């Protein structure tokens, strides 16, 4: 579910299961669940997507990773974000394994490359914090 910021930006509406993740982002920390059997981190859900176990624990990630792929939205595929184009969407492989999606911030969209080293960036929008990424160093 989404809600919209006062300037019309779509924001996540946390669920009982995803709330700890978004609480972490608000503290500028990246926390995800990890399955004890294989160390696998995953986007919040009630059971591990590999073994369907429910004995996961929350763990904090470094936030460091590399760009798996990216695109620059120059058309405003979401009309609510048309005022923000051009903006970059990246899939980032974190050092600890999971692949996460977020906007690239703090760089020119034309300077982004596949394989680029990035770190988590935290974008505060009203009462929500969004996960983004910026080039490392």
């Amino acid at each position, binding site marked *: 579910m*989404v809600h919209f910021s006062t300037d019309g930006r779509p924001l*996540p509406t946390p669920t009982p299961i995803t709330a700890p993740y978004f609480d972490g982002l608000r503290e500028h920390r990246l926390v995800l669940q990890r399955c004890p059997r294989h160390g696998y981190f995953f986007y919040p859900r009630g059971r591990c997507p590999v073994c369907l176990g429910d004995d996961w624990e929350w763990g904090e990630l470094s936030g460091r990773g590399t760009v798996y792929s990216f695109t620059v*939205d120059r058309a405003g595929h*979401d009309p609510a974000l048309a005022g923000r184009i051009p903006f970059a969407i990246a899939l980032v492989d974190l050092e600890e394994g999971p692949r*996460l999606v977020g906007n690239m911030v703090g760089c020119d969209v034309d300077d982004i490359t596949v394989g680029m080293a990035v770190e988590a960036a935290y974008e505060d929008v009203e009462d929500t914090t969004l996960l983004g990424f910026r080039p490392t160093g």
Partner: protein
Amino acid sequence: MGKRAAAIVGLTEWAPKRVWDEPMFTMEACARLAAEVLADAEVDKGEVDGLVVNGLRESPLFAPSALAEFLGIRSNFNEVVDLGGATPAGMVWRAAAAIEVGICDTVLVFTPSVPAPPQPGSNGGPMKMKMGAYMGGEVWGSPQGQFEIPAGLVAATPSFAMAAQRYMAAYGVSEETLAKVAVDSRYNAQANPMAVFYGKPITVEDVMTSRYVADPLKLLEIVMPCYGGSAVLVTSAERAARCPHRPVYVSGYGEHLTHKSITYAPDIVDTPIRLAADRAFAMAGVSRDAVDMASMYDCYTITVLLTIEDAGFCPKGLGGRFIDEHSLRYDGDWPLNTHGGQLGMGQAGLGGGMSHITEAVRQVQGRAGERQVPDCNVAYANGTGGMLAEQVALILEGA
């Protein structure tokens, strides 16, 4: 030898249009499509005992029963298929399989995509317009609404653009090579008066100078959304033999998916196409070399490149060279999407995906007119749904 239990014996297809001046309820569109496809196959409506739809606007629940009631069909096989762009191909193999196991004999397969008559007192509202690109991901509890939509990862183009970006970094294909897919498709569309881009050929330079929509994809590498509609009729081999057109056996098929959002794709350049195609070819017992024409889902140019590779027509990483070295035109050495593909014909909703099947059927039946591929007996047709997610491959063979 592959499966010979069921065959496509008739088709109907409406020319895709940007503006549709005859709004219709989905059920009314299905009734018209049914009348047309039954006439094409010379099959009586009373023989129909199965139907497959994606859904009905006028009956969001109970779609098959609502449609059977509306069409006056006593139906033994009633299916809703929800696989995005792979839906039409998924419908066709389900119909063929149902006929093979003996639960029904003759199945109507519908892919209408027309606007409804305007509803009194309703204009859709601004919020509905805004959320169209979210494709349902905005509902409570949807992971998309939590993680993808806030990042602007909506609609389909940004996801396919990321596949293209990753592919180009991994294998070094040029944007000009991807552009050639659009150019050859548009060439084919010049032999298809139903194509939305009929009379409008393009060059590689036209593609290269069109504006970036989502890097590295440019405007002319992206399908044009249209209205339209189509239907096919699938029946038993026994009944097919008494139809006027050459029966087109659904001789092999495969289906595969792992994810909905591109974020969760195990590898965005090693697509579910591979496993679906491998199963289809194995089931049909035909080699890639036996394929006379390919009808590949082409929502974007990159989709065609990935399909050529992952369907096994060339090794991984050499799809760019394959495109450079072959003419993909109806009169070329490797005819592909001879109707112009969706890139040249337009994407009439699910009718866009169905166009790959109707064209393969026309070619195998020898009724493709100016763009007929000589001695066309075996076709590969596929559908790609969502974000390189749902995949269905079909082998279609003439009787």
